[in-house]
């Protein structure tokens, strides 16, 4: 089961100075519906990760990661990641910090299985604004 959430360990990391989202490398890995990802997920694991030609285990590095401010809201911006010419079915994703022992940041549930066959698979993230961004406070 995949439960969309900011992971509890990431919240803990915020209070213990363990992740710097302005400089660390964040990655996104994709998973089948058989994955068990939730608030208790502390780090990336390959169990139930999708597999395909042109998909590398561990997923891909997120680009455009920026800590932004709008009014009193602080939020994290990302570019939409794409995998070209892949074939798989996935249900969700894990955003994690490959600079810090693959510590988890957030779990995404796509709501239903998403299937791609020899085509480009793009995860369209919420708009990078103070009211829509994936991670904000």
């Amino acid at each position, binding site marked *: 089961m995949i439960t969309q959430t900011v992971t509890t360990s990431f919240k*803990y990391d*915020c*209070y213990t*100075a363990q992740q*710097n989202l302005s400089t660390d490398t964040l990655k996104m890995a994709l998973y089948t519906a058989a994955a068990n990802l939730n608030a208790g997920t502390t780090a990336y694991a390959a169990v139930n990760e999708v597999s395909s030609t042109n998909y590398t285990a561990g997923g891909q590095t997120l680009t455009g990661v920026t800590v932004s401010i709008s009014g*009193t809201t*602080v939020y994290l911006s990302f570019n939409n990641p794409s995998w070209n010419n892949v074939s798989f079915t996935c249900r969700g994703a894990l955003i994690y910090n490959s600079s810090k022992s693959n510590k988890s940041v957030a779990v995404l549930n796509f709501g239903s299985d998403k299937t791609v066959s020899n085509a480009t698979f793009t995860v369209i993230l919420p708009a990078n604004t103070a009211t829509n961004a994936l991670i904000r406070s």
Partner: protein
Amino acid sequence: MAFTGNYMPTSFKVGLLNGVFSFTPGTGDGYYIALYTNSATFDATTSAYTATNEVTGTGYTAGGNLLTVSASVPAPLSPFTASTTAYINFSDTTWTTATITARGALIYKNSTLTIGGASVVKPVIAILDFGSDKSSSASNFTIQFPAIGSGPIGSTAILRIA
């Protein structure tokens, strides 16, 4: 010019994502609480400690008291925990034999940090509005932090990410 409520400074939120604030007990990070009169004007844009409008009086030293991060910072969260809240709790702090009047407080870190690419001296992590002036006369002045809560654990702690 007056207190207008409790705030978490925006700069503190950025600092959390920059990984510059550590509350792990015993790591040497010194967090202080300073008291202010109602002439102070603080809000979410307040980023650094200031001595302006800080209280003066017998038993109070500028800069305030060093806080103790209590041992209730959650461990890295076993999958069996019922709580998904990360929280920070401080021990109550007291100025003894103090003659002071305060309307609110700043909690700040007694160091210089780089937050959002800028250097911040004594960055503030919380602004507390006591709701009305609180006074002591040659007696103890104590800040009582809220209980951490149990439903779920951490739900009423002074600093928390739910």
